[in-house]
């Protein structure tokens, strides 16, 4: 993507606090109208990256380019960006209306235009009649909607969101997710969304940037980062998976066979020409990719194993199982909650498709990693 076509470009941005490198040579591109998530555990540098884009933190090196204009050294208040905080950060001494009007007043928008614009934005976030209230008279969800309206009313070139849903309770969070996504689709505002919640990132984003220890681990669509994680970290951080160590025994156009360490079992995966024979790999299989089949059915096929249920728990949407294979190793399985449960001690067969097998070169780093 060329810099001119992207709404926001970050080039080799770097920031350290003392001896701790918070953001290490991060480069990103966000297309106009894109919803881009920065996903990672706390302390991975995602918030610092967002604050550097906003201008609240000064980068040590690198560039922030907004629609072709280098804004790295531009003062915060001249950037025309929007920022929504986890803490809402509303102005407690002003009414909802004045909170939303704040940015327009700083831009000297004439009064005749200001009122209607604020009202329209309050309607859009479904707060129409609450303009005269003070923030402390609103619920958490309403406060965050005021914060959204306040950030969007100035029509920012890019809207930055710093864990905006993390302070809300679970039900409200789901509701706000939908609302945020619909708002974004309606306004087509480019949004950079920081979160540590992988489900949130997958649901909302056009693309996800997975970060760890100040670096970008992987950039891709939600499907890509979930199904084809580039590193063990990404595989582990996005959803739960079973990790098995092994070595590449066969590699061809039809697929890859990995012999698991410490036993006669082997796993078949899709073709991976980048792996060589004898290479140590880690096999990752998602909990929900493993199917439970009736005991004794079709023995001998690849990725089919006899197993015994050693643990079962019902979690509403899913049955959680731990099963033991013939060689003693245990695997975790999440089966659809609607299925009939298997009792503890029951003999069963488990199976998964070669397409669902994730192969990661041992040592953590995947191919093509910018390390």
């Amino acid at each position, binding site marked *: 993507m060329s810099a001119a076509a992207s709404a926001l470009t970050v080039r080799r941005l770097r920031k350290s606090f003392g001896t701790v490198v918070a953001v290490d040579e991060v480069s990103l591109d966000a297309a106009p109208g894109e919803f881009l998530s920065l996903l990672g555990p706390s302390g991975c540098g995602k918030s610092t990256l967002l604050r550097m884009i*906003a201008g609240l933190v000064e980068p040590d090196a690198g560039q922030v380019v907004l629609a072709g204009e280098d804004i790295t050294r531009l003062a915060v208040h001249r950037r025309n960006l929007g920022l929504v905080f986890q803490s809402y*950060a509303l*102005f407690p001494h002003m009414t909802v209306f004045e909170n939303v009007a704040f940015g327009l007043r700083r831009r000297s928008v004439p009064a005749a235009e200001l009122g209607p614009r604020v009202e329209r934005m309050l309607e859009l976030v479904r707060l129409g009649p609450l303009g005269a209230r003070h923030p402390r008279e609103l619920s958490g969800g309403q406060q965050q909607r005021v914060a959204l309206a306040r950030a969007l009313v100035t029509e920012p070139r890019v809207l930055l969101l710093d864990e905006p849903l993390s302070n809300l309770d679970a039900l409200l969070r789901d509701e706000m997710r939908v609302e945020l996504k619909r708002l974004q689709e309606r306004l087509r505002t480019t949004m950079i969304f920081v979160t540590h919640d992988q489900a949130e990132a997958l649901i909302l984003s056009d693309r996800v940037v997975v970060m760890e220890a100040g670096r970008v681990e992987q950039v891709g669509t939600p499907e890509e980062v979930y199904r084809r994680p580039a590193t063990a970290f990404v595989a582990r951080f996005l959803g739960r998976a079973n990790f098995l160590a092994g070595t590449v025994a066969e590699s061809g156009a039809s697929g890859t066979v990995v012999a698991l360490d410490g036993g006669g079992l082997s796993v078949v995966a899709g073709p991976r020409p980048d792996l060589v024979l004898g290479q140590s790999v880690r096999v990752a299989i998602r909990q929900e990719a493993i199917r439970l089949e009736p005991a004794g059915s079709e023995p001998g096929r690849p990725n089919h194993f006899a197993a015994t249920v050693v643990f079962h728990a019902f979690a509403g949407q899913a049955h959680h199982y731990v099963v033991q294979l013939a060689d003693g190793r245990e695997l975790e399985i999440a089966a659809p909650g609607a299925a009939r449960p298997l009792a503890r001690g029951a003999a069963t067969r488990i199976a998964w498709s070669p397409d669902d097998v994730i192969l990661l070169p041992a040592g953590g780093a995947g191919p093509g990693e910018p390390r």
Partner: protein
Amino acid sequence: MRAGHGWWLLAPALLLLLVAFVVPVGMMVPTSVRPYVPLVGITGGFTARHYVKLLTDSYYLEIIGRTLALGLTVTCSTLVVGYPLAFFLARTRSRWRNWLTILVVFPLMLNLVVRTFGWIALLAQNGLVNQALQALGMVDGPVKLLFNFAGLLIGLTHIFLPFMVLVLIGAIQNIPRDVEDAARVLGASWGSAFLRITLPLSAPGILSGSILVFVLTISALVTPRLLGGPTYQVMSTLIYDEFLQRLNWPAGSAQSLLLTGMVLALIYFSSRLARRTGARA
């Protein structure tokens, strides 16, 4: 726990207030309306002349006015000097921060008389300040900085600055950084964000710091006595002289009650103001 139980926690403080404040002040009320005859002392009967004299005699009115003016100017000067200092201390991430805060409080650890004598040495006709001013050619002759308003203003500002700074640090620290950052991202320059967000949100601290310094200033005794000398009077020194030099307890009681009334009125009106601004914030 039932709501009523909590009141017992106030009992020790209320008892202390009763014994050390309400009872002595109450005892002054009858004294303040007794006639006083020089060389004889307090006599029986009733008179309002101590109050009338206090509120009509230009000598007393000047002292009352001076006391209030001093309270107001000391409050303003501690605010002007203290706010930037408090803002810095509340916001800095320097590892020296705790030491700097201790430095602000440090003057409180020295004896008040010692500190005040220090100012006499500095502010005297041939003191350090006057020598410096003359050496720099800023003034022709020595400037009178002692036994007048300027001397009291300088001394009291120095002594009460820590109180103002400590109250303001707390108030400024309570303002979330995110709120200021939000204002700046929305297009407010640093100055604009300060005036529209930080300053209004620190108003409760400004108010309570101001009340504290004002009340301490108009009731201060040692510093006005030492820096004002025997003739430049404020209400507290006047009361002291009335009781201990002239032995005119009825007049002293009337003056004490007026000063107490002024302080209570100030606290009442400012807490109403706080409630009004608090309702908005």
